[in-house]
């Protein structure tokens, strides 16, 4: 990345030592001040020149310096930078590096082309290093690896299906029907995180009854990114930090920097992870008796002879099964597979003075906990940086991803065909196993035989993706006091996404119905982003630094999604044309957003940082596509310890800070039109007015965020605390709100009111022990958010999940945006709130005898309710594990479904979870030339969870999080996570790791 260089530029300008022609050699060793271990990779350079070097694997360096050099600049990520004075004729300079515990020197991106030291930062920007991301217990996908690591975020896995699907919400509810997920920027390229459904609704009919939103459970395209390639992640949580990203940044920005090569010896690194995947938790199944089996037909006192006959038949069936030993736990058979996990990563990096490169290949192969499901991801990355000359440097990043996921058939449906829905009514005393000919019996208790469905269907998503970006930085002029540069950037994110859902014609639910279905989708998506920025740094004297920047950006996107659904298949065939009937749906979307900005940053005596900026944005998705919307920002921080009057030595950093900013969220594509959807009858082509009314006046929702905080670190950074309070309001909230059905429209797009989020984030880092043989670093975060609908210009309305009788999210003025209401005794009552009371995470790293390292992350979510409809369905199907318990004199399962009380299924989804735990050992190597280091380790991801929640896992979402909206299907919204309808059960993983560096 080129950005850190501007920091060096500043240093270059500050120092004006003259170089003489004579030269001298300096050698030395770079070591950790506490442990005494050599540190490889430390940059040692002569101020104000291009002369510099990097220490090798043993920490040794050699540098030729001009005679008369009086000092060396030493820097290394995670350590404090130093200026080391050297005497004339001194030839050995050993350098002792002090760890930067409070990370005050970390460079944080604050603008589109500028950055600032953390010590001067006015926002609480969370950063996650590559080590924190994947160095403990790697998650399946990049997004899952963020869980528990971002104070202020609510991160929820939608399901356990291979290939991911995660909802990330920064600082509460930022959007309900607009984009509620953060913008991902990878090396300057906007990286799509869309979820594109495979058209499974044609099989499941999930969206045809209680809720029109798509429930296909597609994977998120953010899962494509290989976590091993990531060097660093910065998270701009709200508008006060992300304002310069303008109209796409309201839900936060996740800035990802991938690894780059360093000049010096070529480094080859091979990492292998081998492990297994198991279900986290099973619900258990009801144990039947002859009497309870008979009750499935009706009560014993039912006078209907048909009921009594059926009762006798079921009782006999049960007894026969029992005596034959054919009582089965189908839940365990379906969800109890142990999946194998293999992940291989090879990276090569290095380069010379002018050109550096990073090349990596990654192959991840993983089986799911359901037979036939799994995830396969191949990723190849090449990053090249090149200095054309002293003034111009160029960086190129390229990434190819090929991924394939087999996701099974889970979640809600209305045809009784998904695994979970079929299981929910299948008792333990029937035999669903295939006979010797491979024929599966028909399930008399459900529309499908889940074993047959699992073994014979295909639901595959195949992605081929190329993401590339280029970055050019040109220094126009450079003088003692001023530097002007131009930064140009372009990015392309192209993917082809192919879905194939195949259901043979002789499946139980196909043989008398649609006679086999083949649903194949093909999506081409290309997004580009362009930007040009001028940055001028002006340093009139050592007390003042002024950075001015101005720039323009342009983003375009085009997506073409074609799904063909064929039914009545030719036996054994899957081709779309080998079918009796086909229907094709196409959805295209296109946008063009552009904006420009100016920003000024002032630093005074390195203690005050004041910045201000404004951005203008427009988008073709807005009702008025020509209108520029204005998003201002401003920030101030004051580091008291840099002041002359500061005399308290124990406190080495004390900073107060405040920032304000605005950003927007453009309306979704198509929200300004009222569509006439294709609707044919009898071979005649027809168009029917959509029940979603467009709004030609639609405009972006606007977020204004104020945050203020205090950062303090004492005892040389051994204890540091970061405390932040924020107040975020969203005005003109984009709602697809309910209209009275009598208008002819069910919903309408409208800027309908205001939302408010207030929250607190506390982060405490402590290093209780720091000795050569034992080091303990501990990081404790605590955060909470409260949201409120402060203004609603429309009547209150239910936005899902499945109606009032089963609990629904309900937007109402003066109430939390995440409240859940439902019918209790015929009255609509408040039942819960999806917002957690608070969350906390506790990360520890213990290093013992230099080579052992134990790391673990505990995540606690307190409060936050789910709507557990899995339990409702198992009650309905009479298979809940506690069905026969007694509540109010009735069987629990019967009581719950007939109580007319939606609160029964609104359940507390609190949990304490050991997200990650890993133990690693670096094998001490002696006298080896070729191999530089060998690491081995074991890790466990999401292995231990404590919760009272009755579903598979408290993290669940039937509706996904970024599912796209097409003409014919409604995507997910920003609220309805936590709805639990027979999901793909969550999994846990344990792995063994080996890493070798050459």
């Amino acid at each position, binding site marked *: 990345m080129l950005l850190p260089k501007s920091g060096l530029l500043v240093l270059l300008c500050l120092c004006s030592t003259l170089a003489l022609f004579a030269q001298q050699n300096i050698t030395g060793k770079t070591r950790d001040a506490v442990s005494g271990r050599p540190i490889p990779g430390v940059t040692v350079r002569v101020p104000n020149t291009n002369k510099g070097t990097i220490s090798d694997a043993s920490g040794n360096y050699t540098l030729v310096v001009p005679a008369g050099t009086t000092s060396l600049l030493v820097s290394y990520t995670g350590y404090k930078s130093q200026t080391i004075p050297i005497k004339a004729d001194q030839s050995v300079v050993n350098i002792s590096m002090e760890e930067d515990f409070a990370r005050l020197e970390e460079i944080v991106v604050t603008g589109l082309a500028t950055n600032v030291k953390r010590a001067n930062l006015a926002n609480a920007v969370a950063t996650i290093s590559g080590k924190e991301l994947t160095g403990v217990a790697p998650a399946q996908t990049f997004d899952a690896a963020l869980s528990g690591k971002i104070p202020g975020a609510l991160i929820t896995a939608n399901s356990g299906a291979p290939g991911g699907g995660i909802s990330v919400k920064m600082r509460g509810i930022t959007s309900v029907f607009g984009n509620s997920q953060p913008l991902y920027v990878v090396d300057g390229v906007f990286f799509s995180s869309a979820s594109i459904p495979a058209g499974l609704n044609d099989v499941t009919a999930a969206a045809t009854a209680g809720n029109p939103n798509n429930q296909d459970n597609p994977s998120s395209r953010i899962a494509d990114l290989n976590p091993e390639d990531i060097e660093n992640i910065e998270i701009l949580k709200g508008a006060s930090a992300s304002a310069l990203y303008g109209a796409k940044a309201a839900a936060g920005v996740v800035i990802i920097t991938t690894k780059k090569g360093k000049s010096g010896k070529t480094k080859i690194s091979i990492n292998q992870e081998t492990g297994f995947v198991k279900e986290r938790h099973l619900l258990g199944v009801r144990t039947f008796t002859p009497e309870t089996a008979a009750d499935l037909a009706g009560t014993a006192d039912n006078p209907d002879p048909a009921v009594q006959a059926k009762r006798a038949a079921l009782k006999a069936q049960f007894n026969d099964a029992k005596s034959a030993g054919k009582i089965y736990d189908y839940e365990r058979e379906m969800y109890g597979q142990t999946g194998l996990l293999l992940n291989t990563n090879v990276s090569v990096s290095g380069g010379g003075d002018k050109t550096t490169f990073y090349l990596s290949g990654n192959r991840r192969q993983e089986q799911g906990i359901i037979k036939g499901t799994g995830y396969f991801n191949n990723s190849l990355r090449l990053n090249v940086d090149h200095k054309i000359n002293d003034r111009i440097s160029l960086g190129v990043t390229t990434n190819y991803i090929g991924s394939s996921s087999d996701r099974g058939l889970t979640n809600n449906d209305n045809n009784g065909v998904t695994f979970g829905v079929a299981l929910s009514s299948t008792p333990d005393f029937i035999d669903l196993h295939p006979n010797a000919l491979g024929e599966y019996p028909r399930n008399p208790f459900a529309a499908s035989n889940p074993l047959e469905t699992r073994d014979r269907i295909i639901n595959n998503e195949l992605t081929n993706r190329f993401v590339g970006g280029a970055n050019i930085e040109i220094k126009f002029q450079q003088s003692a006091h001023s530097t002007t540069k131009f930064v140009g950037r372009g990015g392309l994110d192209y993917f082809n996404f192919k879905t194939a859902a195949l259901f043979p014609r002789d499946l139980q639910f196909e043989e008398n119905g649609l006679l086999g279905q083949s649903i194949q989708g093909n999506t081409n998506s290309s997004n580009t982003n362009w930007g040009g920025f001028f940055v001028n740094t002006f340093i009139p004297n050592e007390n003042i630094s002024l950075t001015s920047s101005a720039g323009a950006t342009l983003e375009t996107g085009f997506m073409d999604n074609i799904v063909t659904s064929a039914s009545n298949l030719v036996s054994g065939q899957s081709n779309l044309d080998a079918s009796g009937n086909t229907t094709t749906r196409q959805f295209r979307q*296109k946008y063009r957003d552009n904006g420009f900005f100016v920003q000024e940053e002032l630093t005074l005596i390195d203690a005050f940082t004041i910045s201000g900026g404004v951005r203008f944005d427009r988008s073709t998705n807005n009702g008025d596509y020509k209108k520029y919307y204005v998003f201002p920002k401003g920030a101030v921080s004051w580091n008291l310890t840099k002041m002359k009057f500061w005399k308290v030595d124990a406190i080495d950093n004390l900073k107060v800070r405040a920032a304000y900013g605005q950003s927007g969220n453009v309306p979704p594509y198509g929200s300004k039109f009222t569509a006439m959807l294709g*609707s044919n*009858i009898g071979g005649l082509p027809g168009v029917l007015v959509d029940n979603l009314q467009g709004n030609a006046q639609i405009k972006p929702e606007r977020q204004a965020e104020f945050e203020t905080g205090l950062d303090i670190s004492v005892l040389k950074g051994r204890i540091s605390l970061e405390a932040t309070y924020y107040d975020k309001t969203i005005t003109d909230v984009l709602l697809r709100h309910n209209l009275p059905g009598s208008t002819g429209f069910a919903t309408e797009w409208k800027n309908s009111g205001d939302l408010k989020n207030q929250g607190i984030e506390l982060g405490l880092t402590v290093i209780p022990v720091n000795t050569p043989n034992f080091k303990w670093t501990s990081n404790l975060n605590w955060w909470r958010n409260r949201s409120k609908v402060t203004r609603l210009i429309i009547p209150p309305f239910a936005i899902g999940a499945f109606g009032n009788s089963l609990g629904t999210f309900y937007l109402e003025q003066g109430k939390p945006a995440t409240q859940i209401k439902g019918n209790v005794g015929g009255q609509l009552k408040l039942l819960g709130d999806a917002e957690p009371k608070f969350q906390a995470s506790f990360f520890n790293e213990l290093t013992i005898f230099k080579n052992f390292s134990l790391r673990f992350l505990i995540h606690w979510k307190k409060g936050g309710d789910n709507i557990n409809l899995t339990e409702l369905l198992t009650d309905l199907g009479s298979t809940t594990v506690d069905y026969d318990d007694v509540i109010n004199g009735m069987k629990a399962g019967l009581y719950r479904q007939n109580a007319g009380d939606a609160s029964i299924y609104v359940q507390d989804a609190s949990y304490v979870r050991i997200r990650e735990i890993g133990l690693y050992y670096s094998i001490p190597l002696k006298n080896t030339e070729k191999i530089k280091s060998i690491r081995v380790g074991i890790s466990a991801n999401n292995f231990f969870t404590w919760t009272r929640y009755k579903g598979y896992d408290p993290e669940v979402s039937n509706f996904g999080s970024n599912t796209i909206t097409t003409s014919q299907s409604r995507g997910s919204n920003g609220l309805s996570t936590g709805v639990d309808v027979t999901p793909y059960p969550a999994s846990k993983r344990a792995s063994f790791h080996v890493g070798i560096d050459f």
Partner: protein
Amino acid sequence: MKKHISIISIFFFLLGFAACQKGEINSLNTPVVAGITADPSKSDLFNLVTGAESGMRFNMAVYLDGLGVIGREIYRFSGAEPRYTTDLLGAGTKVLDNNTFYLTNPWNSRYQVMRQCFILLDAVKNTRSAVATDAQKKAFTGFAKTIIGYQLLLNINMTDSNGARIPQPNGSPIGPIITDPGAVMDAALKFLDDGKADLTGAEVIFPLSGFGNYSNAAGLLKFNRAIAARIYTYRKNWTAALTALNESFLNLNGPLNDGVYHTFSTNGGDIANTLFLPPNGNGEVRVAHPAFVTDALPNDDRLSTKTALRNSSASQSGLTGNRDVIIWSSLNAPVSIIRNEELILIYAEAKIQTGSFPDAIVALNRIRVSHNLTPYAGAVTFNALINELLYNRRYSLFMEGHRWIDMRRYGRLSQLPIDRPGDDVWARYPLPQNESNQ
């Protein structure tokens, strides 16, 4: 420095090139309402008619299942949807939900079709006479108004005295909730009367799918009057019902199934008939209510033509049924809108109500004999004949959305069977939350 300038200028050229794509990005996927009504072509108008006819089918399965379950014609078992056996049957302390699929889906779909018809009316208003003559335009408007009247009827059937709104033209504010179902039905009749006026002397140029012999202006007029006759019956305006029947396609000796239908298919862009469930299926099951079986007269062929004995009875939540509903034989099977058999029964009812018992008995016998029963031999009294009429309406119009409404309008809901302790028979659906929350 020259080199740098050239690089910069190339960059800006690229940026400028991308920025050159100016202008609005229009709807890439579908026509938009404002576009289609501005200056419609003939095929635009045809597409709108087809869309309206197609939309009339939306959520009819839920509508018929809902009415059938509440009216104790059927049980609807679903592995994924408990509310057919809980809410709709009033299990335990359950009541009907004012914000869920069985109410809001059909309710919204009916008004959606009415909105489509108003869009068609707007489009016709803006149609140049070169595209359609006045007589041809009248056929469009007559069709649109007829459909509005019919769709409004289906919604007030659900909510009854909880009310409904009269649909308004495009751009007009919504009207009040009218809780007098009679007033809403009168409004529906007004749309039908206006439609009748337009259709008189009109020339139909648009194609229809399920209207069969009633696709021309005269046929549409007959369909219009058939619906009007049904509403007059509900309004207890017997003479008007008989007048409307005279102008409808009532044919005492004609085929009972002659009429107007929703057609379905699995072809591209069309929708399949989801009322079809394979016989002897599991999980998703629609079985006749046991009382439908036990109350059938011996030899009544309607039991065996409309239901079939299952290999194994189906059960859910303590309910069991052993006869599958087989009215719709495939995913391509049609669903009736109104047919001659109903008109004959309306005729019989109006005749009973107006004291013309012999005429009524002729009509009832036409039905009875067609279904393998002997001619009526019961008492020739008002009460006995009404009982006989309701029996025949129950069996002839099984699962066509009539039983519950018949029992309601004759104050006989309490006669519907209660299967489980704590179950309720609902008199009407609540007003949808999206209407009451305004």
